[in-house]
């Protein structure tokens, strides 16, 4: 068997084994690669900094346990940035039941990181999951109490917290912006159409890497004010904030995996062209 043929018939388990080895070595022997700062992350920081100090930012964590590896670091980093800028947070989702729970852990961690005695009920409130997707978002914008059923994630009345006591609507009178996390549907576009536009609120978005190309169209059109790119964006924010977390921890594995993917593409094409030159019939 020629080399291209052997390469073409390579057992995938070898590829998976090398992938696992790369991830394990990166985790066990971290190298601390510098992250730098992309234009999109700079835009996120500029947007958060443009919001009035003391105002309320609505965070919509529309994700569950799968993509939380990419989006939990984003929520934590955004919460740190927001708290340091003096913003208060209200968290709630309309499409993903587990998102608010995931976000609550991250925001609590961010509050601890920032320090200064940030407290639940005063600096942030989590209204939890409100069923109804677009209708729930619409309802929050029209009537916050009706849309949230007047209770938070723990079933306690929103009127009992200083932060949410007077909030009537999800609009520019009570909030300064919306930050939505996107893994598909429902996602940023739903919050944009059903809450941000009618409520005249600016919206920025964080998304998993796979969603970035499709969401970039809305940033280019000016509909989304900023877009944070997956775990890499979260890692850049963590480095900027000097608050290392899961985002930074995963980037070395991502870097070495990217090198491995390039090698795989080259190897695959070497096999393909080698087989074609030898006239070895159909390629894969």
């Amino acid at each position, binding site marked *: 068997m020629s080399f291209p043929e052997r390469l073409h018939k390579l057992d995938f388990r070898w590829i998976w084994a090398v992938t696992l080895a790369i991830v394990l070595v990166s985790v066990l022997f971290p190298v601390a690669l510098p992250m*730098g700062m992309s234009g999109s992350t700079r835009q996120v920081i500029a947007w958060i900094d443009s919001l009035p100090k003391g105002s309320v930012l609505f965070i919509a964590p529309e994700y569950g*346990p799968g*993509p939380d590896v990419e989006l939990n670091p984003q929520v934590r980093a955004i919460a740190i940035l927001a708290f340091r800028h003096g913003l208060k947070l209200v968290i709630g989702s309309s499409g993903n039941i587990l998102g608010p*729970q995931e976000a609550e852990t991250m925001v609590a961690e961010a509050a601890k990181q920032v320090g200064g005695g940030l407290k639940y009920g005063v600096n942030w409130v989590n209204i939890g999951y409100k069923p109804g997707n677009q209708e729930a978002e619409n*309802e929050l914008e029209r009537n916050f109490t009706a849309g949230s059923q007047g209770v938070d994630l723990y079933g306690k009345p929103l009127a009992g917290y200083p932060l949410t006591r007077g909030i009537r609507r999800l609009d520019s009178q009570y909030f300064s912006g919306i930050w939505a996390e996107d893994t598909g549907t429902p996602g940023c576009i739903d919050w944009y159409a059903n809450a941000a536009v009618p409520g005249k609120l600016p919206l920025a978005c964080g998304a998993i890497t796979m969603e970035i190309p499709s969401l970039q169209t809305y940033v280019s059109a000016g509909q989304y004010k900023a877009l944070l790119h997956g775990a*890499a964006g979260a890692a850049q924010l963590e480095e900027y904030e000097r608050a290392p977390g899961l985002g930074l921890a995963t980037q070395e594995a991502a870097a070495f995996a990217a090198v491995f993917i390039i090698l795989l593409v080259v190897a*695959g094409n070497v096999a393909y062209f080698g087989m074609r030159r030898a006239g070895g019939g159909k390629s894969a």
Partner: protein
Amino acid sequence: MKKEIPLAITGLSGLMVIVGEYLRFAQNLGWLTTFNTWFQVATTVAFPIGLVSLTLVHGHNIQRKRADWGLSILMLAATYVYLAFDLVSGPANGTVMSWVYTAYISPVAATLYAMTSFLITSATFRTFRCRNREATLLVVAALFIVVAQSPLAGLISHYWGATATWIINYPSNAAFRAITLGAYLGAFATAIRILLGIERAHIGSLAK
């Protein structure tokens, strides 16, 4: 009438939402708020219906001792025990439900999600072939984007990230706009067909 009544309900519901959304008198009367509340109730009711359906399906598996009926027992036990804990203690930190979620559900879901990385690497080897000019362009663009998402891009060259940004902002943007426009036009046409009763897939076997 078995077919006509569900179609009439569909059309009437759609008409009510359109009227509530776009007509001033209906907005003043707060129709949309009422419809939103109905929708939220309907969405919430869907969860116990799903639970009942799940219980019936796996209950039959257990009753008839079909293949893997033991897994059905495990599934139902996990579902109802977790439901019981949630009803009793709620989702607050420090409760059993919170512990089960943090210690089990979240890591298992993350593991399943992480397994896609292995499939992606083997798929990369298998499918990224420079068969022609367009395929070569796709492969080169994909490699630019993959590296740009990692810290490597900054280490290699400042222009790498800039090139990746250009690819996302211009050619990719143009393609996605075209796809999105087509998808939404298609969705709009399908919605009109459903409201007018031309499209009947949503009423299932009654459509025949």
